[in-house]
């Protein structure tokens, strides 16, 4: 059985189309990442799955329960962490946790083993008001509150947005441990680099899924040859490459530019040499060209561009 099944879900707010025909399947026990920019429809999909919103059309189920008919059943077995920090700022860490445990008809003691890993990190501050916690600790508390009733599916809506690189890594380590305990994790993020930490991902843009599958499957389907190009100065190099013959796209990626060319046009070694000699003769210094494997971000940009054309 799939933990989550989504069939052709559509949702509009007035004239604004938030989701248009989204279908997905999330397997039990996996970390599934919904990856896309703000405004792509991630939160809307989350709210439909957590029974907070009704879709205009289509159907969805969580743990075999229909999101419309069995909403009460779903509410009992899911954990949900909304995008914003949504706990009671004026209650202490302990009070928040106990409150949410009671809401789900359980106690902190009963399920302590589920949250021990994370809670032990904030337990020294258990009498502090949630509002006075730092960002990272608030996040841990919110995660504890979402986990305290031992949910079978955990929904995390953009848990790492606005969080620094180090805390993000910590958070993903926690998710890996939660997954190990058998919980299905459905997580959304705008950060493409987090795709590699998921078992499977769906890329979402303007309310539509542009691709889904394991990160390696998505990467393997990238149709172009990709080169990492370096040269000084970088910005003029970018502009130069975009106007060069046979270049399909060129974008900066950290310290290099990623250059996509049609792989059928020339042999791999030849293409590399051609680019290198081109940019050297154009007067750029410290040049280097390497063929590279595409990452999720390359794929996203390619797929988003393709879906925009369709």
């Amino acid at each position, binding site marked *: 059985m799939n933990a989550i099944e989504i069939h052709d879900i559509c949702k509009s707010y007035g004239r604004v189309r938030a989701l248009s025909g989204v279908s997905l399947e999330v397997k039990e026990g996996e970390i599934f990442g919904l990856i896309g*920019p*703000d405004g792509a429809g991630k939160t809307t999909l989350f709210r439909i799955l957590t029974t907070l919103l009704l879709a205009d059309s289509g159907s969805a189920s969580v743990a075999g329960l229909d999101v419309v008919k069995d909403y009460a059943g779903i509410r009992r077995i899911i954990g949900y962490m909304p995008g914003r920090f949504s706990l009671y700022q004026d209650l202490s860490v302990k009070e928040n946790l106990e409150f949410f445990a009671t809401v789900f008809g359980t106690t902190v003691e009963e399920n302590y083993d589920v949250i021990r890993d994370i809670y032990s990190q904030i337990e020294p501050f258990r009498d502090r008001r949630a509002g006075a916690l730092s960002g*990272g600790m608030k996040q841990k508390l919110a995660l504890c509150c979402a986990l305290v009733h031992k949910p079978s599916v955990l929904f995390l809506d953009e848990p790492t947005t*606005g969080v620094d*690189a180090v805390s993000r890594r910590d958070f993903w380590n926690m998710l890996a441990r939660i997954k190990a305990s058998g919980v299905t994790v459905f997580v959304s993020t705008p950060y493409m680099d987090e795709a590699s930490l998921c078992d499977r991902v769906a890329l979402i843009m303007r309310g539509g899924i542009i691709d889904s599958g394991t990160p390696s499957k998505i990467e393997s389907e990238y149709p172009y040859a990709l080169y990492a190009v370096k040269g000084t100065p970088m910005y003029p190099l970018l502009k130069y490459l975009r106007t060069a013959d046979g270049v399909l796209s060129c974008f900066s990626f*950290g*310290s290099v530019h990623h250059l996509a060319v049609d792989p059928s046009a020339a042999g791999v070694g030849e293409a590399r040499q051609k680019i290198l000699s081109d940019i050297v003769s154009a007067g750029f210094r410290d040049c280097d060209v390497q063929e590279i494997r595409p990452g999720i*971000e390359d794929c996203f940009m390619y797929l988003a561009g393709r879906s925009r054309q369709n």
Partner: protein
Amino acid sequence: MENVIEIHGLTKRFGSFTAVDHISFSVRKGEIFGFLGANGAGKTTAMRILCGLSVPTSGGGTVAGYDIVREPEKIKRHIGYMSQKFSLYSDLKVWENIRLFGGIYGLSDREIADKTSEILSSLGMADVRDSFVASLPLGWKQKLAFSIALIHEPDIVFLDEPTGGVDPETRRRFWELIYDAASRGVTVFVTTHYMDEAEYCDRVSVMVDGRIGALDSPAGLKRTYGAEDMDGVFRILAGRALRKE
């Protein structure tokens, strides 16, 4: 080369908590200066002081040639500011936003009219001139906000996580706007959580526990810390933090 920001021993205390602890640095004209740090390292506090929004407990310096303690109002006239959280009024139309901010910075009607057509044509947004900002895609909003932050031709523009949540292509197009501005001589002071964006900066400072943990070009930092990319540098430096946010 001329420095547009010069800071000496800047300190900000909140009670017994030292948010910013004796930081000193300078930013050159036309430079893209990346200002990194973990959540709670003191970035926001430091940036508020530089923008003239907060007075340092001790230390001082100049921004755009004005003293940050004595002349914060003058600083505000000569800098641009854009953040992810607040940038434009979503219930005003595109041209109304441009007129509003032009007016705030004391531009004449004529200058505002010129700037409006200049901004709209350079962003390719002439068609949405009369649209409400709320109806624009996030990427467009951010680009428009950036152009409006530059409407009064400031010496420095402060960007606080300008690309948060934006799709990968728009994020890169945004950085191309930053490059363009920098090539026109505007100094860009930018914070980000995307480590690949740190690579696009001329120099990067990483704040750790209220101090400047490191300050160098991205290449220099990677060499010093033996890291493959800026993410590695950041993790080494932020990992040294004693203060837990």
